[in-house]
């Protein structure tokens, strides 16, 4: 009886394992075949492919900044804050108002650097405020609830903020005024890299390095890591857990606000629903990089941006799928599935504390 059960168990394991391996091989095959056909057909020049990568990095930088908020909240509190996309949207919307006011005052194009800094501060402040409000109103009471509860609350909060903005500001799209210093590009390796992309990538890098330094080198950052590791022990060691959690939300919100400004200045059109898809993609990026891991979120964002930008043209068109760019979102989410199939904990793995393991 025992021997039979043992055999059955082993057979069962082999079947699932075999299917997974089959899927992995098929995935690699599809990607390789599609890429090979695309690259060898000479449809696009090398410069064009490089441009795809640059576009992807630019888009990915924005995803990365928003993903940081998701990953930090998950690391500290253990749930996904689905309202974080709306934190991003609120910064973008209010930033639009600020930018348009500055444009009307004539400052926008005459003092671009100062104007951008002002709008950046306003966007970051708004996003931080919304994040803090979320924490105080929606999540604080649910600290000790089972983890599904704050997750559902966050979905509700997300709808609430979306429709609050719809009610307050209406449904039409708001446009950021064009910034003339961002027009133009520099020529590197045969492709044109826009000043706007350089600004986005550069600012995002600065923010990410800043955040990493903050988390790894400062006392508050150490408190954050401690609370993420083990809340109760951290409290016993004298860390003010409440304040640390508030700080987590604030920093996540600030990052989203910065992303909002970069999005606004480059893509220029925002409305009450802008946060939804960005939120989901950023969450995907966070999981892709390893949820709970800050460097993982950055890497995940960049990876997702590149997959999304290069994927349709490289793989889908190569495989002969028509209207490949309509499937851009499919590629983005498939990228997540593929990464998880090969590495279930995400690219840089999840940092599990004992109770979660």
């Amino acid at each position, binding site marked *: 009886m025992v021997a039979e059960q043992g055999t059955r168990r082993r057979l069962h394991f082999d079947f699932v394992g075999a299917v997974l391996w089959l899927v992995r091989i098929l995935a690699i095959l599809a990607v390789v075949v599609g890429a090979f056909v695309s690259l060898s057909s000479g449809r*696009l020049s090398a410069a064009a492919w490089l441009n*795809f990568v640059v576009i992807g990095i630019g888009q990915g930088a924005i995803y990365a900044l928003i993903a940081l908020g998701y990953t930090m909240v998950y690391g500290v509190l253990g749930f996904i804050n689905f309202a974080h996309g709306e934190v991003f949207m609120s910064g973008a919307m209010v930033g639009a108002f600020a930018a348009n006011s500055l444009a009307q005052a004539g400052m926008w194009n005459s003092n671009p650097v100062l104007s951008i800094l002002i709008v950046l501060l306003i966007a970051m402040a708004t996003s931080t405020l919304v994040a803090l409000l979320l924490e105080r109103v929606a999540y604080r009471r649910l600290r000790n609830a089972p983890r599904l509860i704050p997750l559902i609350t966050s979905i509700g909060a997300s709808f609430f903020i979306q429709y609050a903005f719809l009610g307050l500001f209406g449904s*039409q*799209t708001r446009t950021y005024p064009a910034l003339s210093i961002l027009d133009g590009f520099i020529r590197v390796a045969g492709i*044109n890299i826009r000043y706007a992309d350089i600004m986005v990538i550069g600012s995002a890098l600065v923010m990410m390095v800043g955040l990493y330094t903050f988390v790894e080198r400062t006392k508050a950052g150490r408190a954050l890591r401690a609370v993420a590791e083990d809340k109760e022990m951290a409290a016993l060691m004298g860390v003010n857990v409440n304040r640390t959690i508030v700080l987590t939300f604030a920093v996540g919100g600030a990052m989203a606000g910065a992303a909002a400004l970069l999005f606004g200045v480059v893509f220029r*059109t925002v409305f009450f629903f802008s946060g939804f898809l960005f939120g989901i993609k950023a969450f995907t990026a966070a999981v892709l990089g390893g949820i709970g891991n800050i460097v993982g979120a950055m890497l995940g964002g960049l990876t997702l941006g590149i997959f999304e*930008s290069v994927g349709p043209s490289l793989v889908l068109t190569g495989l002969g799928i028509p*209207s490949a*760019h309509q499937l851009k*979102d499919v590629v983005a989410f498939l990228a997540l599935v593929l990464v998880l199939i090969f590495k279930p904990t995400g690219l840089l793995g999840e940092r599990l504390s004992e109770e979660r393991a």
Partner: protein
Amino acid sequence: MRIKKGLKLLTLVAVLSLFIAACGDGGTDSTTTTGADGVTTTTAGDTATTTEGEDPGTTAPSGEGDLGSVTIGAGEPVIIASIQTISGGTASLGQDQVDAIEIAIADRGGELLGHPIELQSEDGLCSADGGSTAAESIVANPQVVGILGTSCSGAGVPASQIMSEAGLVMISGSNTSPSLTALPYLSDEPLEAQENWNEGYFRTAHNDEFQGAGAATFAAEDLGAATAVTIHDGDPYTEGLTGQFGEFFTAGGGEVVLATAVNKGDTDMRPILQEIEALAPDVLFMPIFQPEADFIVQQIGEFPGLADTQLMGADGLLSDTFVVLPETEGMVFSGPAQASGSAYEDFVAKYEEAVGTPPIQAFHAHSYDAANMLLDAIEAVAQEDGDSLVIDRAALRQYLYDLEGFEGLTGTLACNEFGDCANPAIGIFRNDDPSAGIVGVLGNVVGTAALADQVDPDKLN
């Protein structure tokens, strides 16, 4: 062990039955509510006879008296509903149609046969979800006589089915997707109902077969284009229009080097523009909506290979919120030929007085005609029963199907058996001055296509 097995079996049965319920036939209730004297009222959820527009074919509408009727008591209002896009990025497409409807009602003093006219305005959201939600809430009110809408064909598809099953009529002033009525008009083959045709659906806006032909002819002849790229966004209207454009462009000797699509909600158009730059087409035909079109025109400047490509939009972009963007200068649009004449000018004057601005979009006159068509039809069909009005739904449909010689702002209209009532005149407009707004664009006609002459007159009636 046995309990566990039983539970598994039960779960399996439950799941299977859910599958069957979900994937099975939508279920047409065959309960009719015919009363001998035709004074019964149809209530929500009841579908009428089984000859409702379920299967495409060349069937003509069914006869009298089997859809029930609406009884409007003394002093009660005649309720008509509208499903228009009045919020979101495409709100300009619906708002001026609602305004046009209200002017049509005001022209009659707000009254029809002694009863006040009440407009139940719903938001179609330019999406299938919006259209079906709006339609459901309208058919839940058994006193609604007819619907004016939708703005977008994407919302029109589910709305048309829902209202048809409830016995209503719907007249759209701006749906143009060919899938909502029939094809082909511009060839000798007989007309066939398309997949989303439903009985009781009418429109005063052109069928996009005409717009595709007009745009393709303009591109090939006036612009001298040999290659084209088309972009749609998955919506029935955009897909239909790019399909028609592609057919006629290819038939005229041109080549559609890439027929591709974006998603509604996409913000980064640079990858797709990079792909298109490699092909360097003469024309980029993008009959999509805002804000995706905004992103394309804003980002196309970064691709020097596309500097000589002529951008062509369609009637979804003929709105004030799009043409004022400086990047749209030089862009060409296909759309319905605008009305003219003294009646139209009177209408525009009334519009400006009521709304404060000139009409912001291209279908206001069509919507006004649709509203008048519906109100005239109700007036003709309604029977007075003392102080009450009885409106037979089937008679209302039949009246509209038989309608000929209707003098509207957009021309003399006649409805054929598939609901196409429009005068299919297409105009091509160019935006030479973004600061002049939509009024400037609609006034700057660079081409026309009066394709009605090429159609067998039987098809149009």
